[in-house]
């Protein structure tokens, strides 16, 4: 492209006000998917594999959403894997050993109580970490390094290392699988809600800008952005709805509902998996917190200039504590997904997750210097990591080689991000 044409293209792109880094990440993801698909002989880009990929990503993605805010506030949390293990164990014991004594097995309240207990424990752990960091002045690196050892030890202590299984049936839905998918019909309902939300937010933002007389985005840009988002939603729905349940399960369901099985066989789609919906929900909520609330604004201000934030009259200690509480709650949600998926709570659960979570956040553009990062980027980062990993499994690479590749990708991704930043000097908040 000639220079003026390139500039014209850049202007067009700017008119859309899309985050260029996010587009870059999506591009990288598409390249990885196509590359892995070619190398694995077409085994990657199948509805079945993509569906599994989405379920496998959910737990790390949930924690990555919280890790972004922790890192943005110039802290780190090395304990998330251990907290996941400990909280998972607590939830496992609660639903498989404690509650059945009083309520009986498979009581409809069991999953709610187990989840609530887990979230409360996660929040309490976060509160403890945050209070030590904020009020006692111990660096987060040390507090959570200690937490990594402490909570892993506590997880062992709950059952003396014994694995707890099986989980409550309703609870298991949070882990995906056949029971944990919402089916084609509900998937369309979710899709329609998502499309409505896209349309509403586009129109709302436009109306608000017009009220105060700001320049509006050109209509073509609004349509293009909303249209692309809508197409992405439809693509996801089509993939989720073309992954059929195994024939025998489909026949069982047909029998339960008194349906006649046609001679060519029955096809019932999985639809979206619950853990994926949970992760998306977490992503939306945390993005909302980060961009639309005072709490989020202060987290970013704290990362940009802690002294200035303090001098502005912000209670920075309270903000720090809240960041860690949020991280603890998200660890608990991730623990629910992961124990439900495994149908067991084990002592080793979540081991090394802290590294994947931090890597996902960093690949997703979170600056370790603080003040910069997006929730969507981190969750995409989690998807990139998981894509690489399961792609390499499909290609039959050995585990040591997988680790080497993931390690290299992490370093190269951060290097590319630095290059991009030093070129543009443009940050993004939220």
């Amino acid at each position, binding site marked *: 492209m000639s220079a003026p044409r390139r500039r014209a293209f850049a202007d067009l792109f700017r008119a859309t006000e899309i985050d260029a880094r996010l587009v870059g990440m999506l591009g990288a993801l598409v390249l990885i998917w196509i590359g892995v698909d070619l190398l694995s002989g077409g085994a990657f880009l199948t509805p079945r594999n993509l569906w599994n990929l989405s379920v496998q990503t959910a737990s790390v993605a949930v924690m990555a959403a919280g890790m972004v805010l922790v890192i943005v506030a110039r802290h780190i949390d090395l304990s998330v894997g251990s907290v996941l293990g400990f909280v998972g164990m607590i939830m496992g014991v609660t639903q498989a050993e404690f509650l059945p004594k009083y309520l009986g097995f498979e009581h409809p309240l069991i999953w709610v109580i187990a989840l609530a207990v887990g979230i409360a424990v996660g929040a309490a752990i976060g509160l403890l970490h945050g209070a030590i960091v904020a009020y006692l002045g111990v660096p987060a690196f040390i507090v959570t390094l200690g937490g990594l050892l402490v909570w892993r030890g506590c997880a062992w202590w709950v059952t003396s290392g014994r694995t707890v299984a099986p989980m409550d049936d309703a609870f298991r839905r949070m882990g995906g699988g056949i029971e944990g998918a919402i089916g084609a019909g509900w998937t369309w309902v979710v899709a329609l809600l998502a499309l409505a939300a896209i349309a509403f937010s586009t129109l709302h933002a436009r109306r608000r800008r017009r009220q*105060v007389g700001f320049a509006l985005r050109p209509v073509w840009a609004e349509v293009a952005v909303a249209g692309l988002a809508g197409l992405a939603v439809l693509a996801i729905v089509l993939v989720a709805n073309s992954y059929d349940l195994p024939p025998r399960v489909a026949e069982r369901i047909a029998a339960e509902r008194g349906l006649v099985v046609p001679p060519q066989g029955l096809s019932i789609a999985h639809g979206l998996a619950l853990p994926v919906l949970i992760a998306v929900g977490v992503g939306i909520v945390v993005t*909302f917190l980060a961009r639309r609330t005072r709490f989020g604004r202060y987290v970013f201000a704290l990362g940009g200039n802690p002294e200035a934030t303090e001098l*502005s009259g912000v209670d920075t200690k309270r903000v720090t504590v809240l960041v860690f509480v949020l991280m603890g709650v998200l660890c608990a949600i991730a623990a629910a997904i992961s124990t439900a998926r495994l149908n067991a709570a084990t002592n080793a659960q979540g081991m090394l997750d802290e590294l994947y979570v931090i890597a996902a956040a960093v690949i997703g553009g979170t600056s370790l210097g603080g003040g910069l990062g997006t929730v969507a980027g981190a969750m995409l980062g989690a998807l990139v990591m998981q894509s690489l990993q399961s792609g390499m499994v499909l290609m039959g690479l050995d585990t040591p080689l997988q680790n080497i590749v993931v390690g290299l990708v992490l370093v190269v991704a951060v290097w590319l991000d630095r290059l991009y930043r030093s070129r543009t000097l443009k940050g993004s908040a939220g």
Partner: protein
Amino acid sequence: MSDSRPPLVEMRGMRISFGGVRAVDDVSLDLLGGEVVGLLGHNGAGKSTLIKMLSGAYRPDAGEIRIDGRPAAINSPRDARRYGIETIYQTLALAENLDAAANLFLGRELRSGWGTLDDVAMEAETRKVMARLNPHFAKFKEPVRALSGGQRQAVAIARAIHFNARVLIMDEPTAALGPQETQQVADLIVQLKKEGIGIFLISHDIHDVFDLSDRVAVMKNGRLVGTARTRAVTKDEVLGMIIVGTCPAAAIPGPDALAVGSA
């Protein structure tokens, strides 16, 4: 000045120590509405420390602050802001990763009816204030990191004056600026003075403040050398106050200032 009205700000016997060192020792100073007081002294003379007690960043060991003649309890930056005291720090104290509007409203965000941040309204307000300070400013969407020194200064000043400040503390306001931007800040100070705002202008460079100040106050080694009407003293006399700690005849000496000739 009418004698019946109490000064806007009175600081009496302010004292603070850090690790045994008396950074500010028994300093009393006042400020009237619409007055500019230049606070002068070497680096480490205690100017910034004194003023940080007024802005709530430090808590004094002893001393009393009165606003409009009434004792004021200032224990945090938030308290100071409640009394209409706004500070522009030497370091500007901006979050470089946030845009101008986010910085301007930091700690005092405008919120919508649902309790969420109203970024659009904040940007609109920011556009209004900035139009007054720096009409050419257009980088509303960029993080402050991408702004020039003068533009950052404008954001810092906008933040101070937007919330109806009555007392403005400017710590080395022109240190990072070019000649043209310095002139802009000077014009602004004259304008704010007309609006009845009292301004403390802190500097270690006498030339920065001499033309703008109604009075100068000089500190040395944590103590007040003296205060003087700017028109009543020469630059050389003020330099003598700063460097040697001598107090010329036209000045009101501090607690233990040296008279001219005794040093």
